[in-house]
């Protein structure tokens, strides 16, 4: 236990959200997507954000990645504040990998070309990175699909390619926006375990967005529960289940008590207005 405490003191947190707000003004109404949001994530941590659709979870990680500008508040990366007034520099963006809900593959490129596209854009098209890409492709069992077009590959393979594409430029942070939401349960459990092994081996920081309570408890060290209208943090739940996590844990009483507590937290918020 003391080893954990000692680590806390020295290192600067990897990611910090300080009083982040985001308001969308559309012709018909204004939506407060995120209100006074604070979060601290350490290097190598696995954090989940869960909550009903429309509670600003996806907006949060899109702000960190520079796709959306926050209305107010500050974000720090390795202790350095991010200048959100203009698009991020390539150095900053190279530290992060973004994984979308649908695979978001470009149908005119083969799976391998899709995976190595970030290298071309970031200007990292060196043999060393190409080799790293091939290694990732073989580790995740994608060699079979590497030279075929996305239309010929299965949903699971495409989603795996999406994860590999976000890691090919060796980012320090992975931002995952409900990556396995569209997959069936058996495949999701498989990809969850693969994600955990990649996370452990690369000691990478992960922010994982999901609707699925069970998935969040299985994967993360701590879970931020959000509510809608306005999108705000309701509670932070720390998961101290032992590592490495396994699928058998899902039916153990401590695991189930976590999922029950989280369902009640979200359930109570959700039933008031069925979206």
């Amino acid at each position, binding site marked *: 236990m003391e080893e954990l405490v000692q680590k806390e003191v020295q290192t600067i947190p990897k990611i910090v959200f300080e009083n982040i707000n985001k308001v969308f003004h559309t012709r018909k109404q204004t939506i407060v997507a995120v209100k006074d949001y604070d979060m601290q994530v350490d290097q190598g941590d696995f954090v989940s954000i869960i909550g009903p659709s429309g509670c600003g979870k996806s907006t949060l990680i899109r702000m960190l990645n520079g796709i959306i500008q926050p209305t107010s508040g500050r974000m720090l990366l390795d202790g350095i504040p991010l200048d959100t007034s203009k698009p991020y520099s390539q150095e900053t963006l190279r530290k992060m990998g973004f994984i979308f809900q649908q695979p978001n593959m470009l149908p005119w490129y083969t799976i391998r070309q899709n995976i190595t596209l970030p290298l071309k854009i970031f200007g990292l098209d060196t043999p060393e990175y190409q080799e790293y890409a091939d290694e990732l492709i073989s580790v995740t069992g994608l060699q079979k699909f590497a030279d075929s077009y996305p239309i010929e590959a299965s949903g699971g393979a495409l989603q795996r390619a999406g994860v590999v594409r976000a890691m090919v430029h060796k980012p320090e942070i992975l931002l995952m926006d409900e990556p396995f939401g569209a997959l*069936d*349960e058996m495949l999701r459990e498989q990809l969850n375990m693969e994600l955990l092994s990649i996370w452990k081996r690369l000691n990478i920081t992960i922010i994982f967005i999901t609707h699925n309570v069970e998935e969040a408890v299985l994967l993360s060290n701590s879970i931020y529960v959000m509510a809608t209208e306005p999108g705000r943090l309701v509670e932070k739940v720390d998961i101290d289940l032992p590592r490495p996590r396994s699928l058998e844990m899902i039916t153990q009483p401590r695991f189930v008590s976590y999922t029950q507590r989280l369902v009640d937290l979200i359930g109570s918020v959700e039933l008031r207005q069925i979206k």
Partner: protein
Amino acid sequence: MEVQKDARISAIDIAKHFGDKASGTLTPVLDGVSMNIQEGEFVVILGPSGCGKSTFLKILGGILPASSGKILIDGTDYGTQVPRELLKRFGFVFQNNNLLQWRTAAGNLKFMLETMRLKGEAWQGRVSEMLEVVGLQDYQDVYPHELSGGMRQRVGIARALVHDPDVLIMDQPMGALDAITRQMLTFELLDIWHKTQKTIIMVTNNVNEAIILGNRVFIFSQLPAKILQEIPIDIPFEERNHQVFSSPRFLELREKLNHHVRATLSLEEPA
């Protein structure tokens, strides 16, 4: 597999293949699936995605003809294709709700009555009654593109109930929904089944849904699909609520189902 006399629907050795041997595109999808379904039962079919579960449902629902085998409804044998006039007694719920975007919620329900030529006040009354059953009585004149995914799915269910069919066939009704809406809709479906006492056959790839809803769960194998297991779910209706997730019997069944389904996956390296 022999026919049970009092079964509502019996499917005997149903096989299905697409393409033909000549052009070398022969792909067998179903390989001798047999099932006897009783009146008022909630049968669930569970299996990995892309294993022919939906095809089997479409054969039962009269959308596709079987390549071989027999379909019996109330004991009469209709061979490989359910005849058109009998479709009045079936209600089909599609995975992506499949609503007619140019008609309002009530309009989609009226579509069923129009095509089945069910006229008269009693039937028109059922339109708002069914929308009330799924909790959408306030959204009668709203168009599908203005509804959320969960609400569209519920209109799909109401549409499959409006002409008062005897059998409800559901193809992964919650497949495209997020986990929270999915769980709420599962319990609503259980309630609808309990209230209407319809015979329901549902396909899903979610183990929780299968246990909460089904009283019998059939596990399908990979392509070409055949029935690997038939597992009865003996949790009484009263206990099937939010608290059931932590009940030992539930967790035991869940482990059992997961074990069988993972077995179907490991036969072939991960998809």
